[in-house]
């Protein structure tokens, strides 16, 4: 059950291919995103989680670089730290712009919509901050901004939901999104989604041939629980290592069945009261 006609998504659909095997963890994408989209600060905290103090995606974090340290070899690479195996996994996470987007399906105001580029965007002047999209997202991407006065910099968008727009304003002007533009290693690649998928398959073969057999694509398959994502990844370990769900499913897939169960329960409630009221009416 989907609100927008996803099958119309096709030729014009654009996306991100984030090749984490060449991410160097510079966080230029995080900075470029904040700058271009004027995203308010998301807290200045020292987490102790490797070099990651951004923690995760949310209303005020639209790109997030994960840092994973593992005592394992990376392909045939020599880590240069004695006899110890060591590898860094760095990955720039972002809104997946799902084919079947739960946030868009559950939005009760129509604030979230599908753009002509196949991306999913919040209209902040429509959103009333009900927060339904937040628990609906199977990836933990979208968040709700705190109300105006409490949060400096949120301004007019205080109290509303916010997430990556894939730089909707730049796309309209024929520019690529700020994160992809700034990425110094082309770990973040922007383009036509079908082209990106082909390119990702070739890259996967190349990386595996180079000895990194743990490499896999994530979100590229249109047959998965969210119909494939507009932003997909080449990962070097299981998705959950990066904080991604291994088998995400759009929650509205089960909604028809939910409505049926609700309907039966409602009729049962009515019948129950009728039975209790009419039975022993003489008493």
């Amino acid at each position, binding site marked *: *059950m*989907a*609100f927008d006609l996803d099958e119309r998504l096709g030729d014009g659909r654009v996306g991100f291919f984030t090749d984490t095997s060449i991410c160097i963890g510079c966080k230029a994408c995080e900075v470029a995103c904040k700058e271009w989209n004027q995203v308010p600060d998301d807290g200045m905290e020292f*987490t102790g*989680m490797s070099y*990651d103090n951004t923690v*995760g*995606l949310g209303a005020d974090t639209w790109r997030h670089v*994960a840092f*994973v340290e593992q005592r394992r070899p990376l392909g045939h690479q020599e880590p240069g730290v*004695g*006899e*110890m195996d060591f590898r860094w996994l760095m990955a720039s996470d972002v809104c997946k712009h799902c084919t079947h987007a*739960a946030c868009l*399906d*559950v*939005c*009760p*105001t129509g604030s979230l919509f599908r753009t002509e580029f196949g991306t999913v965007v919040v209209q902040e002047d*429509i*959103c*009333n*901050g*009900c*927060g339904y999209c*937040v*628990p*609906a*997202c199977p990836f*933990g991407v979208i*968040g709700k901004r705190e109300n105006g006065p409490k949060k400096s910099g949120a301004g007019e968008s*205080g109290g*509303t*939901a916010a997430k990556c727009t894939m730089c909707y304003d730049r796309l309209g002007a024929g520019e690529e999104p700020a994160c992809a533009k700034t990425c110094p290693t082309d770990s973040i690649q922007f383009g036509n989604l079908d082209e990106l998928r082909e390119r990702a398959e070739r890259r996967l073969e190349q990386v595996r041939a180079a000895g990194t057999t743990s490499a896999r694509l994530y979100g590229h398959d249109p047959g998965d629980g969210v119909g494939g994502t507009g932003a997909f990844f080449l990962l070097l370990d*299981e998705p*959950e*290592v990066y*904080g991604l*769900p*291994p*088998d*995400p499913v759009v*929650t*509205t897939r*089960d*909604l028809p069945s*939910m409505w049926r*169960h*609700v309907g*039966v*329960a*409602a009729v049962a*409630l*009515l019948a*129950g*009261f009728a*039975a*209790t*009221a009419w039975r022993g*009416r003489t008493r």
Partner: protein
Amino acid sequence: MSQAVDQTPSQTDVRMDGAAGLRGEREATPGSAGRRRERLMVPKADFDSYYGRPVLNEPTWEAPDIGGYLFLGGLAGASSTLAAAAELTGRPRLARVSKVGALCAIGGSFYCLIHDLGRPERFLNMLRVFKVTSPMSVGTWVLTAFGPAAGCAAATEVSGLYPGLGRAATLAAGAIGPAVATYTAALICDTAVPAWHEGYREMPFLFAGSAVASAGGLGLLAAPLSEAAPARRAAVLGAAVECAAAARMERRLGALAEPLKRNRLLRLGEALSVAGAVAGLTLGRRSRIAAVAAGAALLAGSACTRFGIFKAGMESANDPKYTVQPQRRRLAKRGAERDLG
């Protein structure tokens, strides 16, 4: 762990003061500081996560608002249906308390819902669209139809004006009531929150039972003994359905039921509902005081159940294991089926 320590001979021996070989606490071996008070070795988790961070973003809904709404909405919907049934079966005083109760509960519901919005002044934006994919959109329209009907039913009842209109409004509110009381199950189940989503088969029945029990509780609390018979029976029926649905949900969810099973509010809610229902049916037949106490217990029980469900869901969203493990199992099952076929 020890293997990792053995494999790190590369830590530098060079010191600013030139005293090589002084490695201080770096040479400390685990356990050398005497007996440990706790188990040092945490059993290895059978799933990976990113520093134990949740996969999902925590729902921004506030417990007093949305937990409170789940209770009040159920009470309002079920009370309206009870009011209509009481009116049709000639129990005017039970009908009266149920109508007034429904109006108060639906008023509280609207307050909670609007108060929880990030931009309350934009509440009416909900009425821009109707989306069957959004239980909140459907619910808003249901409430928009229900609110005026319940208000009109209560106002005409109390004032005694326009009895014909009042009867029509009572029946309308009574007909929409079941939808008001049960749609909230779809509202919370239609999320990625594991304990809510996976419980979607039982949740509508759990909520319906809890709503019926609370409406019965209100009838016991406020209506005279001579008219409270349907309320007493409804309380028993509601509490039984609620407990049966909860038990089935917990059994079906397996490991995912942990947050539900260890939730004290849920246990307390069940105990209060059952105690209230039984007390209402026995002592509550004869003693007004016992009926009031039983009614209060039923209302408190229903509220505890709703807050318990709310809290258990939040807990399941905040622990990555409840997101990752069921998905892993699903993938493994699919893989095995593919291998077989």
